[in-house]
């Protein structure tokens, strides 16, 4: 998983990293709901949320520009709609649209940058999310880059051999062949994974992770987040 900076970040040891994933997930949802329900005219509140996030990022010892840059990935999409809104004469709402989507993206990033995938899936599972869905999420994440890298190599190989030129309006032979072979290799890999699981003593049952106890510091963290979000939402 060395591809993902977020994955490396999530293995830190700051106070924020050590909080219980359930507390962080709850704080994430509280923050998102507060941002989502803030009316466009409360511009001060958006600044407040941004400061709250910056404080949390400092506490987590994460680079704020790096986080903000990644969260800015949502901006092209929201900028399009913000422009449309602005065009129809509602500039305050247009601004709020961009701010809301950016802040929401930023807080989601901060969450995954301080919580490893296994921790947040365990939190989801303790909240009774379907077992099967959690397993599929974990497998997808585990093999995402393995297979994406394979796809990348195959694409390069096909470009080297044939060039990227095409002849007809819709010439799918090369790309479809790539997808087909990629599918075949993925299928074989899944078989291999299952065999490896059997070799390691898998008996048709996944043992759920027992979550660490919810400590007082976790409750305090959640209370601070709750107070911060509610304070900004109601007062500013």
């Amino acid at each position, binding site marked *: 998983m060395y591809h*993902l900076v*977020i994955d490396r970040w999530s293995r830190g040891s700051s106070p924020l990293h050590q909080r219980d994933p359930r507390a962080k997930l709850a704080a*994430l*949802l509280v923050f*998102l709901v507060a941002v*989502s329900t803030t009316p466009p005219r409360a511009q001060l509140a958006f600044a407040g949320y941004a400061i709250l996030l910056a404080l949390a990022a400092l506490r987590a010892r994460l680079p704020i520009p790096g986080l903000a840059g*990644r969260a800015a990935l949502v901006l092209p*999409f*929201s900028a399009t*709609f913000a422009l*449309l809104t602005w*065009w*129809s004469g509602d500039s305050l709402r247009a601004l*709020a*649209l961009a*701010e*809301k*989507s950016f802040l*929401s*993206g930023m807080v*989601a990033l901060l*969450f*995954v940058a301080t919580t490893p995938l296994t921790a947040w899936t365990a939190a989801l599972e303790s909240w009774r999310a*379907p*077992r*099967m*869905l959690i*397993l*599929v*999420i974990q*497998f*997808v*994440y*585990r*093999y*995402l880059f*393995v*297979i*994406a890298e*394979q*796809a990348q190599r195959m*694409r390069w190989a096909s470009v080297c051999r044939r060039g990227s030129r095409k002849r007809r*309006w*819709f010439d*799918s*032979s090369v*790309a*479809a*062949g790539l*997808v*087909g*072979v990629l*599918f*075949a290799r*993925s*299928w074989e*890999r*899944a*078989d291999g994974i*299952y065999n490896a699981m059997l070799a390691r003593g898998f008996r048709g049952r996944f043992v759920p992770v027992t979550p660490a106890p919810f400590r007082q510091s976790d409750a305090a963290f959640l209370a601070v987040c709750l107070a911060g979000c509610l304070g900004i939402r109601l007062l500013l």
Partner: protein
Amino acid sequence: MHIPDGFLSTPVWTTMDVISAPAIAVVARRAQRETQDHRIPLLGVMGAFVFAAQMVNFPVGLGTSGHLLGGALLAIILGPSAAVLVMTAILALQALIFQDGGVLALGANVFNMALAGVAAGYLPYRLWAERSRSGAIFAAGALSVITSACLALAQLLISGVPMRGSILWASLALFLVSGIIEGAITVAAVGAIGRLNPGWVAGPEPSMSRTAAAVGVAAIVVVVIGTLVASTAPDGIQRLTTQALDSASWSERAFRGVAGLALIAAVCYLGGKLMSRRRSA
């Protein structure tokens, strides 16, 4: 089209979350019952495969390219419930890690792309595969994309994101084109996979009657056409919602909602009846 957070109004995203969460729970239970042990890693790897397959560019037209979106492909290969689960997992990871779609809007995105998208990809395939296989696969890919996009557009419109008529027409044309591209790519991809091993695209045993499939396809077509028709009069929608909010009493609004739902259900039922009768005739 992944909807980020901040776009949907609070009633819209809460409604979609409330619909999607139990639906996914039911689908997950069903998938757990239907999936043998050795296929559990397969579901995850297929999710990763769809992620990777989205990187492969299919040249379309002059110098442009499209890529596979994969909802219909998953539905055809894994069966509907497993495909819904895999799509949901992909959407959850995209929302949290890749900043593609929002966390609160996950319910809406899951509904559009996993539940409705997979249903719109599976039903036409199930219904027409015996008559014309590539036609059915094309319809599956195209309908799946168009349905998801129209639903997302409708949710944005209901949330009050303003869109002018010309932009709406442009985006509908875009949906149609991307639907056709997805259909063509799905046909090509399923064909290529089938040439390597026909067993892979045979699909699991169907667990649904043809009539149910016909009703489903009719419902999807009604939803898509309804969105198209409603979208041609966006000012009408806006006027209707503001009027309803301003003047109508709570009970009146509730009555209108129920009447609308009943009308949709009746149209779906009749459409399904008609289609299955025509099939048997």
